[in-house]
């Protein structure tokens, strides 16, 4: 770790030790992530440029959203800038947790929303209002081991059938396991992607669950079939576990959020450096891109919203976009970034973030009962994955379970 970073962390410790905050302090609410680390690296420069003092609170993912929501609900004005996951856009919107940013965005040349692709401009929108800027653009993409694929004469898959065939070829060649998903506690991410990609939906426009449609069953069946080509522990692997297994053992391919690319920056994860290729996610019956990634915005009770916007413009504006990426963040899908040859040479996955216009972009389901919906799905999927429940029977039962949960979405 370089010397100036040490000083930085020492200064950060000192900063958190001061309990009293000043009126022009800026309080950031972040979650440990590459994005958060990158944001924090801009603090000294911002403080120098503006005279604001910046404080940081980092809360682990599992607790952050509840804490932020409650803090805003109690109008404590604790935070001026808050990072949040896109899946919480709707709960936050319903609870009035974040301020609409549309006027500020429209007025900001520095932020330049037109630098984003059309679909990606809406990434932080809830009911037509932008509640958060894009903090990272992380579509599900295909990762594959170029050395293994080359040796076997394989090409990155364009369809799920090819993906399965590749996995089978790798497994049978004895060069490693075929492919991995996170089949464990995060399997819902892959599951909903498969449901969409095979042409299904999780629920209809009246919030009736449709998780046992033929398309959903086919997608789920495919997911389960892929277990046969995964390493044994994959069935309980989290998304992180799956990535670490892919980066540290021999596995042909993985479908994973592009944001995990940052893990390759860690010297500990560079075992296969230079041998990892990326390609768009294979297609099924529908051309779907599952787009995820963080948002960041200004809580409604922020004491210092103008300074907060100043900070967001500073870190996420066009001028600093390259520096932001180079600070280790998961990339933001600005066209000026994904098309920059110098950056592409360094981060080979960037072109995949330039999502083609024709594809259907699916975000995390925008319903406020999503956490409960997802948990019920996970409960079922665990049984389906380990074979204790039949795919169709499991999804039929799940459809019933989700009915009362989704019904809450209509409650006033």
């Amino acid at each position: 770790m370089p010397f100036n970073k040490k000083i930085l962390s020492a200064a950060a410790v000192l900063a958190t030790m001061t309990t009293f905050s000043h009126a022009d302090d800026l309080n950031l609410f972040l979650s440990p992530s590459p994005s958060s680390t990158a944001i924090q690296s801009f603090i000294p420069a911002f403080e120098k440029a503006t005279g604001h003092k910046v404080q940081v609170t980092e809360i682990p993912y599992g607790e952050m959203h509840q804490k932020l929501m409650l803090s805003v609900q109690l109008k404590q004005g604790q935070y001026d800038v808050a990072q949040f996951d896109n899946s919480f856009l709707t709960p936050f919107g319903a609870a009035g947790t974040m301020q609409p940013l549309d006027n500020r965005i429209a007025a900001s040349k520095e932020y330049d929303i037109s630098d984003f692709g059309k679909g990606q401009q809406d990434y932080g929108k809830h009911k037509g209002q932008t509640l958060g800027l894009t903090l990272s653009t992380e579509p599900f993409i295909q990762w594959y081991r170029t050395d293994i694929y080359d040796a076997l004469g394989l090409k990155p898959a364009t369809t799920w059938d090819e993906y399965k065939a590749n996995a089978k070829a790798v497994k049978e060649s004895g060069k490693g396991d075929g492919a991995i998903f996170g089949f464990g506690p995060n399997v819902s991410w892959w599951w909903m992607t498969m449901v969409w990609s095979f042409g299904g939906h999780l629920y209809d426009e009246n919030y009736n669950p449709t998780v046992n449609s033929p398309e959903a069953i086919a997608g789920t069946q495919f997911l389960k079939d892929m277990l046969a080509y995964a390493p044994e522990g994959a069935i309980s692997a989290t998304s992180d576990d799956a990535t670490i297994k892919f980066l540290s053992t021999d596995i042909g391919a993985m479908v994973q959020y592009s944001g995990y690319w940052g893990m390759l920056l860690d010297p500990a994860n560079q075992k296969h450096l230079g041998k990892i290729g990326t390609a768009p996610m294979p297609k099924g019956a529908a051309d779907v891109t599952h787009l995820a990634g963080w948002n960041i915005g200004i809580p409604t009770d922020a004491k210092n919203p103008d300074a907060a916007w100043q900070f967001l413009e500073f870190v996420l504006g066009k001028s600093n976009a390259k520096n932001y990426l180079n600070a280790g963040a998961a990339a933001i899908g600005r066209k000026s970034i994904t098309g920059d040859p110098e950056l592409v040479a360094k981060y080979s996955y960037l072109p995949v973030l330039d999502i083609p216009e024709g594809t259907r972009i699916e975000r995390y389901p925008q319903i406020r009962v999503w956490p409960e919906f997802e948990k019920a799905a996970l409960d079922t999927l665990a049984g389906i994955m380990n074979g204790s429940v039949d795919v169709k029977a499991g999804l039929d039962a799940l459809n019933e379970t989700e009915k009362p949960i989704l019904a809450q979405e209509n409650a006033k």
Partner: protein
Amino acid sequence: MSAPRGGPGSRSIESANARLAGILVLPAWFLIIPVFALPILGAFYLSFRNETLGAFVTARFIGFGNYLQALMDPRFWDSIWVTLILILLALIVQIPLGIGLAVLLHRNLAGTQFFRTVLIVPMLLTPVAVGLMWRFMFDADLGVINWALDRIYVHGPNWMGWRWPAIMAVTIVDSWQSIPFVMLITLAGLAGLPKGPREAAAIDGARASQIFFHVTLPSLLPVILVVAMIRIIDCLKMFDLIFILTGKGGPGTATQTLGMLTYNTGFIFFQISRAAALGVLMVILVAPIYVLWRRAAQYAR
């Protein structure tokens, strides 16, 4: 319990004592009321409303709605089932092994003090750290446990992938931490037993095992009962371990105890009123155990 008795003017001493006692316990009340009494009442109040963390709906009283919903929810019964299974397994595994170790230590062989020290280490360690380490040891691909099982020609399961292995994993780690407790209390119980009956039995020609099962064990019964009650209460409270080891109750709901369901409902689903109702149901579940515990403790003394 010893109390001052007899002597001249003992009544006035007693009333002075009572006044002093009332003052001495005041600070304790200052802790109990805000930290415990008020929140319990708060939970009770919340449980009859429909509040959510994000205030999605207009908050109002809905009577027993949350309770009815809980009682009709299969997830609730499933969590009760998981909780009971974990308690049952804990008792079956921990009580015999704890007693066994206590008996070995009670033989007072050379080095007993060393063994006793080593054996109580697990119960004092940070549960979060313990949960993490065991999680790593249980890993299906790289874990040391399945490696060791392989050595003895047993194919280890994917511990966190299936319901029963996950429940077993929780039981194993909980036992690792709690057997020392059972052992220590039983050891103290053994030390407190009068030698007479056992010696008499030995003179009558009874074998060691007969003495143990017919003399020692019955007289240890009250202590064992107390230990069992405490273990039941602590199993109901178990949170850190499941939170870490199985990722908040996984796979699926396999290890989602009532406590974990309460946490998930309140803090993951934002349904704080429903969570409060689950909490109240939990208190109701603890109540009979509490009564038994008091009985057993009085009996043991």
